[in-house]
């Protein structure tokens, strides 16, 4: 295991999310463990993206607790440190109004990685996701699939302990999908935790060690993918 585990397990205890009174999610009790690739499936509007945001500490639960490996709660300021050891690829990633290169480099600069090292890692990530030729392009002008790859590259360079992926191959062509799935597997092999949302049953079959089926804000099934789907 290349990456030390501190943010896992992520434990949900009676978590609900009801931003304006109406409950969108929960109550949820479950935990995300190290070592497994968890895939979350479910219909549109089930709450999959909200669930990832809660795990990543971007949303605070209305009730209940989310705790992680070293005890930080999603409501607490220490979760910022936890979040720094996670990364997320959003369903609709937001790219900075800068070049592809600057986008990929950005979070490394934030973390104070030395310039030379950051440059090397950025180059590697861009080429892993097939973007090396586009490095100087302005990121906002990329095609849909290219944008999604850049978001993946941007998460990739961070070498997070936990990687949340919200439909990460939805805009990718078949070849790129294969490549990205391979990258994710490599990531998993290095000891990182992968939590992924997908609508593709076949992708879920390929990628899931554990599968969660979410419907109307509730986990209705949980277990090996063959059982759930």
């Amino acid at each position, binding site marked *: 295991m290349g990456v030390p585990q501190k943010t896992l397990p992520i434990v949900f205890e009676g978590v609900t999310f009801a931003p304006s009174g109406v409950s969108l999610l929960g109550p949820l009790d479950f935990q995300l463990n190290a070592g497994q690739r968890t895939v979350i499936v479910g219909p549109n509007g089930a709450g999959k993206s909200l669930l990832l945001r809660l795990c990543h500490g971007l949303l605070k639960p209305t009730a209940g607790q989310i705790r992680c490996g070293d005890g930080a709660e999603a409501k607490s300021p220490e979760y910022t440190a936890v*979040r720094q050891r996670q990364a997320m690829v959003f369903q609709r990633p*937001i790219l*900075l*109004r*800068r070049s592809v290169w600057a986008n990929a480099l950005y*979070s490394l600069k934030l973390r104070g990685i030395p310039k030379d090292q950051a440059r090397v890692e950025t180059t590697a990530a861009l080429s892993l996701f097939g973007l090396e030729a586009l490095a100087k392009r302005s990121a906002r002008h990329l095609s849909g699939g290219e944008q999604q790859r850049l978001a993946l590259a941007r998460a990739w360079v*961070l070498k997070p302990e936990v990687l949340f992926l919200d439909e990460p191959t939805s805009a990718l062509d078949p070849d790129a999908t294969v490549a990205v799935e391979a990258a994710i597997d490599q990531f998993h092999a290095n000891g990182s935790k992968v939590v992924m949302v997908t609508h593709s049953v076949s992708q879920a079959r390929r990628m899931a060690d554990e599968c969660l089926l979410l419907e109307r804000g509730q986990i209705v099934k949980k277990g090996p993918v063959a059982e759930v789907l």
Partner: protein
Amino acid sequence: MGDAFAGAAWLVLAGDAVLLGIVQLSLQVSLSAVFFASLLALPVGAAIALYHFPGRGAVIVLLNALMGLPPVVAGLLVYLMLSRAGPLGSLGLLFTPAAMVVVQALLIFPIVAALTRQMVSDLWDEYHEQLTSLGTSRLRAIPTLLWDGRFSLVTTLLAGFGRATAEVGAVLIVGGNIAGVTRVMTTSIALETSKGNLELALALGAILMTLTLLINAMAFGVGELAKRRYE
């Protein structure tokens, strides 16, 4: 009118030392004021957009309201501070260009800060979750958003610059419109107006607006070039 303007334009072109000095002082004072005010107002405006703290709404309202700080009132406040009878009297800044920079910076600060707050808020709505996920602290998000919004923020700075070059109430009180020392374009215009030299006053106004136009054209040109490079 034509004559007065031709005359005034002639003075500028012929390099009339007095008029050139006035023009130069106007630009120096207003540009310095914009510079110093923005140095603070851009990050402060952005910080108010990003941070949530008790009384944030009140601060936003205050900032918006201070866009309406009357120059005369700002002038009086700074006058009372800098007067020999005031707390900072010993600095001897009253009736100097430095005092004019201070008072104009005071006037511009809320304008730049309030408009920046709004623009950065709008950008933050879009970037919020993504930046947080990437590990950007709110403090670190300030330069990120200012940079990504730089093309729009130019208009904010120009609004501040316009306010500075145009106002007369504040510089009159703290500068005193002393010939050769603190006389700027707007105070000259006001002076000529009260002498009844309306045409000369208008001609000076036209010169001032021409300068303002030039500076705005430069800002626009630089912005367009930079945008093209970015695109």
